[in-house]
């Protein structure tokens, strides 16, 4: 328990420029709180997220990776998040198959108007990862802090 209390996870959040990043912005202007250990990486579209990005995030010290994009049907590029949906489902299923905790990864659709949802999602995800503890199964020992 002692360890868990001290453990503050690093979360990498890939946010699409048009919806989720604006959603994060909105949660900021609304003064909604979410933990500072969520590191947001802005991408043009959720389908810009290459599987290598996700693995690299885990390698360089992320304990959890969340991908946020526009709701299906609302993509700025019309169909990007539909492709992202298939890709991430398959990739996360594969990580699960290799025995890497499935709760370390998540996909969430957050629109530009959903500042509250963004904050709530991040709070929830951080709590979930804090409970899981540090990422040991997909880490690179050389990058351990």
């Amino acid at each position: 328990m002692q360890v868990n209390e001290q453990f503050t996870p690093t979360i990498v959040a890939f946010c699409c420029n048009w919806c989720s990043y604006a959603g994060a912005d909105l949660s900021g202007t609304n003064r909604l709180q979410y933990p500072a250990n969520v590191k947001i990486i802005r991408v043009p579209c959720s389908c810009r997220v290459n599987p290598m990005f996700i693995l690299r995030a885990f390698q360089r010290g992320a304990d959890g990776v969340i991908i946020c994009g526009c709701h299906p049907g609302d993509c700025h590029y019309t169909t990007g998040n539909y492709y992202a949906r298939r890709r991430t489902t398959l990739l996360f299923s594969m990580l699960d198959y290799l025995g890497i905790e499935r709760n370390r990864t998540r996909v969430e659709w957050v629109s530009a108007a959903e500042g509250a949802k963004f904050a709530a999602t991040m709070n929830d995800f951080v709590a979930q990862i804090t409970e899981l503890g540090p990422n040991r199964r997909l880490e690179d020992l050389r990058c351990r802090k």
Partner: protein
Amino acid sequence: MQEVMKKRAIELLSDGTVAKVIGWMPGEFSYDMTPAVFTTAEEIESNFVYNDFCGANVSKYVMREQKKASDAKILVFLKPCDTYSFNQLTAEHKIVRENVYVIGVGCDGMADVEKIKAAGIEGITGIESDGDKFIVKTVYGDETIARADALAERCAACKSKKLTVYDEIIGEDGEVVENSGRFDLVAKLEAMSADERFEFWRNELSRCIRCNACRNVCPACTCEQCVFDNPKSGIDQKAAADSFEENMFHIIRAFHVAGRCTDCGECSRVCPQHIPLHLLNRKFIKDINELYGDYQAGDDTESKHPLTSFTYDDAEPSVIHERGNE
């Protein structure tokens, strides 16, 4: 069968229909049949081989030969599972179909020399198929082994004996095998706990020496430059330095061929460390089948690839949280 194939190859070569023939010839050992390109009748006469050790998938060699000379007519002998890879390569515009003369050869499953050796048969010089057994020729005389005991694992769970593309057939065309049981092991792994799965894969993947044989042999790995050859990646052409790199190589490689992998099983066949790499690819195939409808890469050259298409009501990624063991 070998003689019929030889005769036909020489015919097509001498009447000018084709300029090159792709088939198999003995490698370093007589059970080590390796893909080969023939350009003369003499070479075919002396070296061409087709027997139960010819497991190698030669479809990728068509692409390589066409790269050298794109307009040369090529004759290629394809087994049923090779035809799937051939179709997939055609669909991806890696092979110019018009310049290839395909002879489909019937296949009853290939022998795994490791299994034969494990059964205590040594000094192997050749093999013949005889009903439900193989007759293995050795320097000490003929030995017999039950077909079921010597059949390569991938052939025991054969998905299809149907030739999906051919200009003519030597031997017999077969049918798609229903309930081949090829996903049994994947399902067994899925039923394990996450800890057990992690143990299993760590045990397997930690043996990887990054020889790149799986990538080089794979008919779906046809990028001009592989992501793992990028000198800026820090992981090009070197052994994995950490468990993460072992995992990453195999996750990314499997992901890059997801939806295009025809499940020919070459990756596992060539792995010098005997890592069951096909289980990674099969996981993707199984997921695609379950989530996006049955799909067999290489069935034809028209159908849409599952990762470059979508439907509006695809499963949400959270679906993986709802199934199996955590």
